[in-house]
Structures are given as C-alpha cells and as structure tokens.
C-alpha cells in the first residue's frame, strides 16, 4: 500500500514537470527538411500556391493532440530519422542518389513511428497509463523496424541484411547494458558474490522484458522495474532477501517516454567525399580501390 502511495505521489510530481521533461529547447533552430523529402515538399508547396488553405482549426481533440505533438516533437523526429538514415548510409554504403531515394522511400516509416508515439503520448496526456509497458517502446528501435519494412523494395537483399545485422547487434548491446546495470544496482545493495551475479545475469537474460530499457535509461538506475523475483530470490541469502523484498519496484512509468526523443540533437547529413573517412584516412589509391569494390546497388539500377 505504501509502495502504491509513494508511486502515485511521485507520479503526480513527475507529471507536473512533464513540460520541462519533454518540451524541446526554445532556442533550437527550425529543422531543415531532409533533403530527400524536399521534392515532396516542393509539390506540396506548389499545391498550396494553387489553393491556399485557411488556417487549419483542429476538428476534434485528436487533431489538437496531433498538432501539439508535431509542434513539440516534430523537429526531433526529423533529426532522429536523419541519424538513422546516416547509419543506413554507412552500413549500406549508399551514394548520395541512393541515399535520397532511401530517404524518400523511408518517409512512411517516419510517419508510422510518429503515429505510434502520438498514440502513446495522447493516451498519457489523457491519463491512460499503460501498465503493460506498451508506450515505453524504444523510439529508435521502432523507427528502424518500420524502416526495414518500408525499404524492403528499395534496398538490395545484401543491404537489407547488413542493416538488419546492425539492428540486431544494437538490440543485443542494449540488452547487455541493461542487464549489467540492473545487476550493478542490485549489487550495490545486496553485495552479491560473483557467482550470484552470474546466476542473476542468466535469470534476467532469460526473462528479458523490453520495458526494462526504458526504466534503466530514463531513470538513471534509480528505480527497479518489476523483475522476476520468483527466480531471483532463490539465488539470494536470507539477509539479501530481506533487503531485496524491501526494494520498491515500479510496474508503470509515467510521462511520455518516446524514448530519448528529447536527446536527439540537430543533425544534417553532409556530402563531401571524405565524410565517412576517419582522421587516419587511407591513401587516395586505397580509397579508389575501396570504392570500386562497393557492391552494385538496386537503387542505382532503377
């Protein structure tokens, strides 16, 4: 009961600070549209010239939410998209033309991601907290999964496989980091033996919950999510069990956790030839060889 009361009180306080948590910095420059998206925007602009629409008034509450969402997070979603496209560019070795095609074909993925998070955000604005962890999805993972779908016909099978591999490796790295962090949190309080740490690692790994990432990253290892206690307790000694049972484990998150959207900084793709080169650059001869070895690309063929 105490846990519930403390949780609710904390939630009230945190909700009251939501604007501070999520509103982008006021001094941020307006986002330049993704280069690949510009043709579409030009078309839209031309259409706009033909029939200038009256300033749109929200038809209903959903429209109002959508507008507010766009106003607050639209730029960040664009930056998020561009950084993910940059990863695609590097992993799939895209030329500028290929990149532009990929960026245009990937727009539905951005739209779908925004829609999804708009839904979570609207629910939370309306006080509908989802205890299942839905709405706490990893934003970048959601976008990259959508991109994978949207680019099925755009990328070659090799390129798609290369991107999929990077996505999988990223997910695995996140999981490793979160499991390790949870064990470190427990260790601080329970002074685990190395053997106990290993066993708990195994338990957490086997009982992985996607929402843990949000808890650990958002709350900076302050709060425990709900964990598989039935499997953890047998690993602990009696004193450790007493302490562990006294820990608060939160089974819901409050606020909008379009995970990390506030962390996405302004990003602009650059196109000078050596942009992907590191400071220890290969000689021009080596670069030429490398370029000639790049796989042919489906986008170019089109």
């Amino acid at each position: 009961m105490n846990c519930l009361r403390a949780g609710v009180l904390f939630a009230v306080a945190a909700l009251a600070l939501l604007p501070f948590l999520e509103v982008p910095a006021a001094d941020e420059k307006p986002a330049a549209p993704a280069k690949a998206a510009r043709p579409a925007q030009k078309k839209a602009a031309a259409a706009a010239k033909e029939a200038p629409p009256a300033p749109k008034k929200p038809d209903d509450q959903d429209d109002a939410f959508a507008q507010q969402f766009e106003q607050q997070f639209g730029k960040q979603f664009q930056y998020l998209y561009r950084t993910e496209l940059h990863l695609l560019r590097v992993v799939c070795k895209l030329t500028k033309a290929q990149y532009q095609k990929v960026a245009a074909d990937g727009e539905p993925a951005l739209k779908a991601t925004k829609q999804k998070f708009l839904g979570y955000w609207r629910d939370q604005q309306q006080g509908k907290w989802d205890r299942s962890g839905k709405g706490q999805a990893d934003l970048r993972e959601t976008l990259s999964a959508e991109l994978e779908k949207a680019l099925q016909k755009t990328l070659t099978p090799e390129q798609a496989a290369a991107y999929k591999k990077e996505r999988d490796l990223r997910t695995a790295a996140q999981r490793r980091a979160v499991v390790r962090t949870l064990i470190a949190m427990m260790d601080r309080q329970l002074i685990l033996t190395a053997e106990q740490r290993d066993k708990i690692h195994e338990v957490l790994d086997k009982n992985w919950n996607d929402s843990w990432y949000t808890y650990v990253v958002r709350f900076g290892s302050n709060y425990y999510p709900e964990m598989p206690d039935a499997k953890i307790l047998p690993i602990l000694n009696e004193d450790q069990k007493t302490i562990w049972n006294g820990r608060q484990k939160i089974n819901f998150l409050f606020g909008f956790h379009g995970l990390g959207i506030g962390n996405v900084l302004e990003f602009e793709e650059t196109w000078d030839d050596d942009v992907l080169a590191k400071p220890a650059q290969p000689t021009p001869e080596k670069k030429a060889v490398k370029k000639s070895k790049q796989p042919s690309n489906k986008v170019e063929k089109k």
Partner: protein
Amino acid sequence: MSAASDSRWALVLAAALWPAFVGSAAGQIEWTDENLDQQVFNRGGGPGGNAASARKELDRSLLLNIQDIDRVCKLTEAQKKKLQLAGRGDIKRFFDHYEAVRQKFQRLKPRLQGDNWQEAWQELWQDISPLQMNLQSGLFHEDSLLHKSLRHTLTAEQLPRYQAQAEERRRFHHRASIELAVNSFEESMPLRDAQRQELIALLLKELKPPRKSGRYEVYVVNVQMSLLPDDKLKPVFDRTQWKMVRAHLDMYKGNVQWLKQSGQWPEDDEDVDAPPADAKPAAKRANQP
C-alpha cells in the same frame, strides 16, 4: 546537459517538490516528521520509510559487507568485531547527520508553513539530498570508516585478496555504467557495432570509476567522456557524426566541480586501497575539497 540528464534532474526536482503538490492538492501543506522521513528514507527504492527500518536495513547491509570481506579474507572474530565497529561508526555518522537535518526541519517549520515555504524547502533540500544519495549509493564506500579501517585490520596477506575482489566489483560496475552511457548516447547518434565496441573499449581504458557507486555513475562517465581530448575520441566517429557528437558532449562540460563537491568525481592518481605503509594517499585526501 542532455535531455536525458535533464529528465533525471527534473525527476529529482519533482521528488524534491512533491510536498508542494501534496499541499496544493490539500489546500494546505502539512509538514510532519513522517513527511521528512519519507523524503530521506523512502526514495528510489531506498530502505524503509522511517529511521527505524532504515537502521535495520543498514545493519543488514553492514553484515553483508563484512560477509563479503570474510569470504575472501577468512576473517578472525577479532577482525570481524573491529570491522563491525567501524561500520557502526558509519551508520552512526549517517544518523547524526540525519538528526541534524531533523532539527533543522523543526527550526524551519514556521517558515515552511508560511508564504515563502519554497525558499525554506530548498534550504532543507540541500541537506536532505546528500542523505538520500548516501543511502542509495550505500554507506560503506571508499570514504567510509569501514573501508578505511581495512588497511589497519587486514593482514598483509588478506589485503591483496580483498583488493582484487573490490577491483573486480569496481570493474563490473564501471563497465555497466559505460555500456549504459554508450547506449544512452545512441539515442542521439546510432553507432555501428564496430564503433560501439571501439567506444566502449576506449572509455574502459581512459575513464576512471567514480569514488562512490550510485545513481550518478553514468553521469560521471558522460562528463569524463566530454573532457577526453578530441584526438582520442574523434577516430571512433565519421566526420558527419563527429559534429553532433562534439555538440552532445559539450553539454556535459562544466559539471566537474559539482561532481567533485558531491564526492562522485574519481580521484587523480591515487590508490585508495594502498597499504598502510604508504602515507602519501592519506595526505592527498586531506587536501580534497
């Protein structure tokens, strides 16, 4: 400061201000002793909601710490007693601090019930916050009496065994903080796996663990990372990424002093587990802010 850390700070702030919300909901703020205890003892999954339950838990924690040392050092009964005494000293020191804060709370009550209660609350919060942090990171850290007494309690044969175990634990925590920091960083800029591994390896090599384990470990990693010379970090990223990375890291600069003041910042060139014969570290520590 990044939005991630902004969020964390905001949550801390939210917790700090929750009596205000409770009060405004009720129309009047009630400042009770229980209210103070909840702030000190019932945050972030800390021990129980009052001093008595916290004391019990700290006693258990001391026991676990001594058991841990005993596992590798095979302590004698006399050694155990000596360590218990030192650990109890840490607990007493904590509760002495708590008592001082409690008395301050009583003195501030009239102001807390007045119109300018926020000012009084902020004043009190400055004292509550270190107590919370101490509880969350554990009392028996490197600056604790328990830890310091090890040098004089363990034999020359036991001490290296303990140091090896402590070092292994420190490395585990440090790696966890670094991996989490890198994953959080990828919210801003996704990395290829090869880059991720390269960055983690670089940070493991270049960064030092914080003096106190706790909720600011990831923050300490980010601040230390922001201070690394460009020539070490830059090779991990491509040029397009680097522009953003530098901007991201620059937001963490300027927080060193605060981390030093709160005892989180790693010490420079000091072996805290140095054997007692080495007087140099103690002299250095005395000069710390």
